[in-house]
Structure formats: structure tokens, C-alpha cells
């Protein structure tokens, strides 16, 4: 497992504040649910979130998303995870996650990390950060700026294996 993850950040904010309660319809609207091809899904990430409709064009492989409370609340659609994986998003750090969203992300191998104080970390869009998955430390320019909640036993194991199916084969 790569114990260090680094990347450029996108703070999903409005008027300088991280947006709370971004639901699965804002991430991936139900009108695109029939799509089965992940590459196609990438085009619609955040396409129903005011101010962020252009996200798929701006995001680059390896980027990290930062969001507020209850990220991914709403429906159980996997598309809302897959669209980010297809864009190459490496991790999502949020103050908290909707429970189903968190599972879906873990099962797909998308790194999701909880950090209550992420808005106090003094980060700007475009900054590069480094996350240490062992101790949860988030660093910018070599300095610790925040700390995430440690990952659970199964979450770590699934992440190491790649996804839930790969993990199941190792059981």
C-alpha cells in the first residue's frame, strides 16, 4: 500500500466556505443513472452543483477533493463514486460523509478520509498536500496542517487490496 498520498486540492466551497450536505444528486444527477460506462460518468461529476459544473474539465488525474459535512448524503448510487474514480481523483477529505457514500467509496478503492478541522488548515485551491495514511497527518510544505481520523480495519484492508472484490479473493 502507498502509505503516502499526495496531490493538488480542490476545496469544494461557496463564498469561501466548504459546502455541507452535498448530496448524490448534486454529485451525479439521477438523469444520468442509466449510464454504465465509467468514462462517460466522469463528464457529469458535480454537474448539478452550483458553481462547480465545470469540475470535470478542471480536475486532473491525482487531484484531491476537500468538502464539508455529510458529503455524499442521499441515494445509494455508485455512480457518485465512480465519476470521481473515472476522473482519477485520488482521495476525498470531508468533515463527515453520508454513511452509504462512505461504504461505496471504500468498496471501490476510493480513499475517503474524515477530518473535522480541515477548514482550519488554511489551505487554498491548487495547494499540494501530502497525507500519511498511517498516522493521518496532512502536510503542506512539510508542515502538519490537519489530522484525519484513522481508517478502520476493513477499510484499510480493502484499500490495500484495491477494491472489495479483490479483497474478497484474498479472504
Amino acid at each position, binding site marked *: 500500500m502507498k502509505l503516502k498520498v499526495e496531490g493538488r486540492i480542490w476545496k469544494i466551497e461557496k463564498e469561501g466556505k466548504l459546502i455541507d*450536505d452535498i*448530496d448524490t*444528486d*448534486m454529485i451525479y*444527477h*439521477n*438523469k444520468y*443513472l*442509466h*449510464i*454504465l460506462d465509467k468514462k462517460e460518468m466522469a463528464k457529469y461529476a458535480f454537474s*448539478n452543483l452550483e458553481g462547480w459544473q465545470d469540475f470535470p474539465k478542471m480536475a486532473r488525474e491525482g487531484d484531491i477533493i476537500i468538502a464539508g*459535512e*455529510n458529503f455524499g*448524503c*442521499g*441515494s*445509494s*448510487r*455508485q455512480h457518485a*463514486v465512480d465519476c470521481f474514480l473515472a476522473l482519477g481523483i485520488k482521495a476525498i477529505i470531508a468533515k*463527515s460523509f*453520508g*454513511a*452509504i457514500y462512505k*461504504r*461505496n467509496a471504500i*468498496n*471501490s478503492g476510493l480513499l475517503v478520509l474524515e477530518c473535522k478541522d480541515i477548514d482550519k488548515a488554511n489551505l487554498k485551491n491548487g495547494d499540494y498536500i501530502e497525507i500519511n495514511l498511517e498516522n493521518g497527518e496532512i502536510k503542506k510544505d512539510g508542515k502538519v496542517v490537519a489530522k484525519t481520523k484513522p481508517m*478502520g*480495519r*476493513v*477499510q484499510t484492508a480493502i484499500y490495500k487490496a484495491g*477494491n*472489495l*472484490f479483490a479483497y*474478497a479473493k484474498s479472504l
Partner: protein
Amino acid sequence: MPTIIEKIFQKHSEDKVEVGKEIWLDVDLRTARDFGGANVVKNLLENYEGNYIDDPSKTFFTFDCNAPANTIGYANNQQICREFARQNGIKVFDVDRGIGSHVVMEEGLAYPGITAVGTDSHFNILGAIGAFGQGMGDIDIAFVFKTGKTWFEVPPTVKVNFIGMPSAPWTAKDLALLCVKELKGKVLGKAIEFYGEIIDKLTLDGRITLASMVTEMGGIIGFIPPNKEVIEFCKNRSKREFEIIYADKDANYEKEIDIDVSKLEPLIAMPGNPANVKRVRDLPSIKVDSVFVGSCTNGRYEDMKMVANLLKGKKIAENVMMKIVPATREIWKKMLYEGMIKDLFDAGAIVSHCGCGGCASGQIGMTGRGEVQVSTSNRNFKGKQGDGDTYLASPQTAAISALTGYIAGVDEIES
């Protein structure tokens, strides 16, 4: 001492159940709906070679989101599921049957104490009968179809005590909206147990309404300990004995929250946020374009009856379009045989085929920009039911608003 969820989990797991720990859970009932179902099939085909289903007798497809399919996407996905089901000996409750989480109760496949999962974020509705239900994504569900198991982090339980009894007219939906308002942010990722005199008074249909909105409260599931009516219903339907799981008196709740319901009255959630709840009577006069009665929250027989009683012999206001969608075919049949369909039709309403209907851009259409809709559904996030503004309210408030043409509560109508 263990809470309800901890007891149910311990009966279904070899791991020691402790709050915060991830355990492996045996799943009794495994379902996928037309929403997500095709992706479940895709995951199975991509990741396994043959032998896709652990136990076909415990595995079902339920088509409800778009029933019958009115987009080519849904139609294709339903057919993918049907063909996979035929090849693998899985029963399909097809587009004729209604909302999956309700069908499994009607069919007696869900009963107190079981564990169940589906590709439906309101599958925790089964808390209404004291069973553990959980909505999951298509990877999770594919894994459960194949192995019969899932992993789960044991959530802490919050005990909610309702204090007092309302003196004003109230419905289970008003209680559910009050809970979304009061509990939002306090129960995120937690299980809930509901207690109080008002709970004892709730019928099975009312319990379904309350349990269905635990998702909007942010909770994992809300358990309502079964009463006699629920036990009888589940016995009749499942034709089997089951153990009813109650919490111990001194169960280890993370916290207790008291909610005073003595002043409960008709409530309404403002567009865009189910937790932005106000008293109906505090709203200014707002003209209504359309009304939707249905969904897993309020598509039950009692909801239909309440609306039919209010509308019988009257006409809905001019320029109001009213769409009514019973949750299941069984409810539809009762409405037909009891003459409710005629009453609703004569009042000017559209009664559609059962299912989710208007809830998630289903078969009954969406709202247009600027359209004001009063809906009995559970969610009104922007865009979910179209581009219009959706208010969430009880069937009672919805029916009265349809009659008056503006958002109105029970005190604004002459009986």
C-alpha cells in the same frame, strides 16, 4: 447491555459485536432494484466466473424506480436484470408490483429480526417492523448476492423519547418531519430507537412513514419496536415464527434525546432541504401548481384513504395538477375495489400505476422550472423531482393544498 441493532447483528455474525468495530454480517434478504440492478449484474459478471448467487431463494430483483420504464436507459437495465434473473433462478418482482421495500414486507420476505439489503437508500424502512435493512451501492450488493455476507461498522445507538401527545391534528409525516428537523446532524451514522406514547399509537403505515425518513435524519436506521399489529401482520405474511428483538432496559445508548411532541401540528419542509421544516400555518400564501401523493414515505393505504376522504365529493382547485401513486399493487387494488379511485378521479386527480412515481424522475413526470409542488415524498434536494420547487408535507396537507390551490393546513378547510 446490547441495543436492538447490536442484538440483531450478534445473531448474524461470528465476530464479537462492539460499537465502532467492523464485523462480517450474514444477510437474510438480498435485493436489487431497477436502479442499480444492472450495475449489480455487471459487477457480478466482471468479477466472478459463474456461480454468481449464494442463495437464489434469498435473492430478488424489485423494479420500482421507473415502472414501467419510460426511458430507454431504464428499459435496458430492467431487461439486463430480467435475463440475469432467469439464468440464475432469481425471482423478479417486476414493474407491476410496486416499491421493493414495501413489497418485501407484503410478501412476508421481511419480518422482525432479519437482516436485509437493497440498492435503495431507503431500505432502512424495515426498521418499521423491527428488522435491519440497509441501502447499499451496487458493489456492496453484488458482493452480498455472491457471498451472502457484508461488512458493517457497528454504529452507536441513540434513543429518542417522544414526550407527550399532540392535541392538534397530526400525522406520522408531521412527526417524521419534526424528527428530521430535530435530529439532523445529531444522528449521522448512528442507529436510532424510537419510544414514547406517540409511537405506541402509530399504525404499521405510520411506522413506515417515520422509519422511511431516518435516511433524511442522517441515521443508519430507526427501529420501532413491533407492537401487536406489526407482529400479526408479519406473522400472516411470512407464515413463520420469529423472535422479536427488543433492547434491554439498560441498553448502552450513546445518548438519549427527548423530543416534545405535545405541540406537534402540520409541518412542511421548504424546497431544497428536508431539514428546513416550518409550521404550515407560518407560511405566507403560496400558490401551488402541482401535488404529488405517494413514495415509500406516504404511498400506503392509510395515506391514500386520508386523501380520498378529503377529496371525496369535491374538486381540486383549478390549475392544480394532482398526481397520486400508491406504493404497491396491493394498495392499488384495495383503492380500486373500495371505490377510492373513482373518488380521486372525480375530484380531478391523476391516479397512476404503483411504484416510486414522481419521487426520482419516475414514470409520473417531473416538475418544470418555477413550478411549485407539494410532495409527500421524503426528499426535495434541488433537481431530484425536476427543476421546480418541492415542498415536503403530509398527505393531509397535500390534499388540502390541492383543494385550496395554495399551501394550506388542516385548519384552513371546512369539514
